[in-house]
């Protein structure tokens, strides 16, 4: 396939960026989007030009590293796939593809397509865990977890922390990310003792990181490579209300 790439190039966090066009010729339709970028980068490198910086690692849709807007859509045109799982066969030969980094105030651009997403880690730090120091656990089968609950927990826990939900949201909200963790832990018996504290602290941290508010556009669930449903946001809101109306003494 012969394509044209229109890529956001930005040398550093404080330097303005711009779009640059690159020809991407003779690309196999079976190559993944990132492999196509490898080919383009390989050609740039051979000429001594700086390759396009982008985050990637596992290349199988699980590490959450890869993150780009492809023609204005987070992770591109394939539903339920991360950028690394998009294959070139879904593009028309001869097309021009626009590639940009995540655009969000909470994710500053580091270089080209690479953004800083540590705000998501800080939301987890605030309460996205069950306090269970190593060593004190009882036998695993003493805690019964209904299959449905385990499945619901797993559906939410599938989040890869890529930030596509934020990038896709017109408000730049991290609600899907935050709510997915709250739903995962809240679906399990082990997660109950800290349930109120968790939601209050995680939501507070989300606000502090300057993510926007959720107004239920639903763009996030469309962009999510794991198709996590916005139902989890409803659960988060319910937990939040419940926690606010009867705050446990230990919450703050």
């Amino acid at each position: 396939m012969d394509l044209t790439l229109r890529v956001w190039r930005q040398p550093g966090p404080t330097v303005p960026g711009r779009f640059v066009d690159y020809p991407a010729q003779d690309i196999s339709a079976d190559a993944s989007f990132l492999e196509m970028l490898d080919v383009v980068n390989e050609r740039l490198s051979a000429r001594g030009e700086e390759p396009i910086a982008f985050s990637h690692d596992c290349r199988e849709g699980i590490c959450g590293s890869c993150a780009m807007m492809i023609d204005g859509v987070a992770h591109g045109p394939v539903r339920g796939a991360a950028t690394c799982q998009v294959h070139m066969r879904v593009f028309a030969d001869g097309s021009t593809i626009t590639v940009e980094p995540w655009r969000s105030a909470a994710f500053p651009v580091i270089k080209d397509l690479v953004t800083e997403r540590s705000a998501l880690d800080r939301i987890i730090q605030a309460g996205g865990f069950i306090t269970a120091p190593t060593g004190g656990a009882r036998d695993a089968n003493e805690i019964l977890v209904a299959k449905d609950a385990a499945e619901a927990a797993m559906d939410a826990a599938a989040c890869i922390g890529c930030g596509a939900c934020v990038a896709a949201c017109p408000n730049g909200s991290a609600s899907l990310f935050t709510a997915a963790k709250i739903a995962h832990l809240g679906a399990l018996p082990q997660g109950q003792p800290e349930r109120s504290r968790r939601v209050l602290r995680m939501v507070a941290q989300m606000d502090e990181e300057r993510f926007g508010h959720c107004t239920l556009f639903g763009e996030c669930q469309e962009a999510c490579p794991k198709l996590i449903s916005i139902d989890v946001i409803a659960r988060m809101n319910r937990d939040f209300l419940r926690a606010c109306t009867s705050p446990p003494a230990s919450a703050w």
Partner: protein
Amino acid sequence: MLTLQSRVPPGPLEDKWERHKFDMRLVNPANKRKYTVIVVGTGLAGASAAATLSELGYRVVCITYHDSPRRAHSIAAQGGINAAKNYQNDGDSIFRLFYDTIKGGDFRAREANVYRLAQVSVNIIDQCVAQGVPFAREYGGLLANRSFGGAQVSRTFYARGQTGQQLLLGAYQALERQIGRGAVEIHPHTEMLDLVVIDGRARGIVTRHLLTGQVQSHVGDAVVLATGGYGNVFFLSTNARNSNATAIWRAYKRGAAFANPCFTQIHPTCIPVSGDYQSKLTLMSESLRNDGRVWVPRQGGDARPPNEIPDAERDYYLERKYPSFGNLAPRDIASRAAKQVCDEGRGVGPTGLGVYLDFRDAIERLGTRVIAERYGNLFEMYQRITDEDPYRVPMRIYPAVHYTMGGLWVDYNLMSTIPGLHVIGEANFSDHGANRLGASALMQGLADGYFILPYTMGDYLASARPPAVDATAPEFRCAEAEVADRTRRLLAIRGTRTIDSFHRELGAIMWDKCGMARTDGGLREALAAVTALRAEFWRDVMVPGAGEGLNQALEKAGRVADFLELAALICRDALTRTESCGCHFREESQTADGEALRDDERFSYVSAWEYAGPDAPAHLNAEPLDFETVHPSQRSYK
């Protein structure tokens, strides 16, 4: 010449760890916060160790080149984690898990380590459940299990096809909790480029910040490397693209022995290579072999679509050759068998390097719904990559590099030959011998991090009481200068060949000559080719960009430079081990029916290679393996 002291405690196998725990020295709680432990890596091993050490009260500095600890390669593990819970009442026990693992490793691992691994396996599951890891459940609410290769019991715990993700998120969340409390200092985007040894002890590391290029020293009382495996020396592997050997290689060059480098695992079920743009190979979890049947056409050159080939004209070669384990034969055996049928010209797919993994019978027996529930996400992944529907057409699979059993040599306390340098997870060599069984790397990483290192670390610190040092020590200054100089040298070459072209060529040499089958002649050729390639690299590589700020090409160049050195050591190790064992198949050493022929008389040892300077060949030390409990037998899965 090194003295390799395994420090295996005395006493009966079953009591060693309990007794050792009691014999080890403790650090008093008030003193713990005076000690700083540097943990490099936040995969299963590193994150679990960092969180646990911090919970115990040590000051922990945690380093990763990833932007977040959650992105470590462990996240990609699919199939599951073993534990000797015997929840299925099918005859499992600690001893059986121990035995399966030792046998699976073709009797090239230390008995005491493996037994301890089997012992603590049960605690891992308890710990993970307490953290909220959403393992698969039965309707009654109990934990579910599946089977993995090399075992006849069902002892593998799993969370759909994302077990590594869920286990890592559990450890990551525990770690983030400690970071949030200010108890762990985390340095993301930070790559360790050297180890600093003062007065014979590991006292810190030198790093480069990947976003600013800043070279910095970190001082500690002990260093833990949890930096993963080196499978990417082969260029194409199932590992994450950025996984590399730099941390352990630099430690090796500072005096840590490297054990069994040639024990590299080739996994039988990966999606075949499709073109030269290919950047990595995708694993199709071994769990698929629970229900999928592996076959090739009886006749070479049979070009009919698979569904039109009648059963009588198919060769279910694993079931035929290994009737008692069938499709669940261990990885090394299944991989070699696939290579064999392809070498006979019976391989399938456009390249002829592929075999079928067929779910037709399982779908007939269980229905599409059950199969989708078990493997849905894997099927989807397969379809996405190949554009073929595995519910209707058999999958095509082929072996690919997957895991490295070799790594830095460690004693029973997980300490390397440099006092104070501990190595955990895939980065060490400890438990898997010459071949790792499925679902046991996650077990080992978490055993090391949650349950073993936190004890042995205390013993080290209490006994060594490392004196105070700071980053102005000449050893730190010197290492910083070397790191900065190497970066400058890489950037100054400005040659004509891209970094990837070197890496790809290195991978091709290693795959052809040091892959699934190895010969004396081939290994000698590989050694010569790798040495020449390395010289060319330093003469002619093109590393664009500058040293300040994010430069992914520079990162890659440093890693490939280390792979080029490590590859030579792998070949030398493979050359000296003239027996076949586990994944290491020397064509010269096989039985009449083509199975690996071990030579216990001459090779029942761990090779521990010692760096001897840039121009001298590494020195081989041997740690003999004593089997007190099991009797090494010729492995049979027939």
